[in-house]
């Protein structure tokens, strides 16, 4: 499980990073909101843990920016403030949970486990790229006309759409779309082929770039 951790106090950053790494998490630690938004769009994470009060860009602004980009990664705010209004604002900015400092490390990792269990429920109903529109509820794509998608194709396309700013690797797709299933990389290219054919059949001005050596990425034709 890969975690993005944003905290400006270097001592706390080091202690939490070390603890989470010890728990088996891979942790990318940054020290402000601007770096957090950059990392959230240039990489893909299983969870985000973020401080509210940070220099350059505060956690609330960073959270809003991350959510605006279509990123639904589960997020926890760490806040020194115990004001109700801060917690409300944090949750409304797109966080899923919060912890008030000081907090117990065990509680942080328990909350991360709870978020992971619910991760599959996070879904945006309508996603778009160019003239291509994906409805994750009816499992259909639409451009000039409409066609149905298989469940795995929906997960694959929504991941490509959520990460349209960067390329995603075969390895990431295996993890994201075929989590906990024993499939080989040929499955990825078969589903990429299915999706390419379906995107073409609705006559969208969009294609999927990439091959075994290069990351997959949606591209407007």
């Amino acid at each position, binding site marked *: 499980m890969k975690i993005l951790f944003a905290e400006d106090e270097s001592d706390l950053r080091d202690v939490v990073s070390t603890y989470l790494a010890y728990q088996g998490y891979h942790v990318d630690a940054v020290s402000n909101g601007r770096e957090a938004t950059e990392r959230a769009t240039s990489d893909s994470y299983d969870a985000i843990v973020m401080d509210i009060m940070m220099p350059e860009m505060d956690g609330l602004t960073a959270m809003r920016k991350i959510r605006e980009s279509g990123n639904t990664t589960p997020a926890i705010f760490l806040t020194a403030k115990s004001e109700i209004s801060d917690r409300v604002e944090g949750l409304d900015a797109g966080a899923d949970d919060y912890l008030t400092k000081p907090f117990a490390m065990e509680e942080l990792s328990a909350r991360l486990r709870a978020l992971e269990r619910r991760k599959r429920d996070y879904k945006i109903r309508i996603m778009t790229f160019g003239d291509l529109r994906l409805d994750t509820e009816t499992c259909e794509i639409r451009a000039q006309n409409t066609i149905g998608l298989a469940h795995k194709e929906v997960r694959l396309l929504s991941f490509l759409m959520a990460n349209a700013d960067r390329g995603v690797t075969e390895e990431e797709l295996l993890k994201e779309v075929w989590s906990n299933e024993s499939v080989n990389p040929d499955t990825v*290219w078969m589903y990429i082929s299915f999706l390419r054919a379906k995107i073409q059949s609705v006559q969208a001005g969009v294609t999927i770039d990439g*091959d075994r050596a290069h990351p997959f990425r949606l591209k407007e034709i």
Partner: protein
Amino acid sequence: MEQNHLYGSCGETMRRVMDSVMKRIEEYSSQYEKEHGEKLYEHLSGRIKSEESMLSKIRRLGLEENTQNALRSVTDSIGIRVVCLFIDDVYENVRQIRNLSGCRVVTEKDYIQNAKPNGYRSYHLILDFETEEPDAEGHTPGHYYVEIQLRTIAMDTWAALEHEMKYKKDIVNQELIGQELCRCANELAACDVSMQTLKRIIRGRYLPYENTVC
């Protein structure tokens, strides 16, 4: 005009035109089968539109009830349907039909790439077929329109059900059934496209990670 006289002396010629176009389709198909070892279509059928339904179509269009309008203003008096296994086969049939001698493609409508809002998918071609026999306007050689509809078996099954719904007047929940039919059309299209992709992969025409068909 009595309805069984709408086609007049052209009635017999229409049947011969239909048979002739169907024979040519059978011919290119058996030639293709010899070369590639597989059929280009599963079913081939033809019909002459009944004079009764032609008459109601002419009335609906507000035209005068005569042979000329039935055969030259309306273009589907002679209809042929080609039902295929795969989408690629539909387009191969279209290519073959375009190359048929003695007829000219007047219009083409690709409702596979541009499905109708209700979900209908098919490829429509209208041919202008030339015959030595006279036509509705008295010209010799005569010209007859032939409408050809090409589709996959899945599209054909869907169209059969949609046709039944359209012509049955007293269906309860017509709107709901229409919506569900549209969903079925999109699911069937998904299967058609997936099976076509698998066929290409099996045939080795899609190399891993290649963007295009080789």
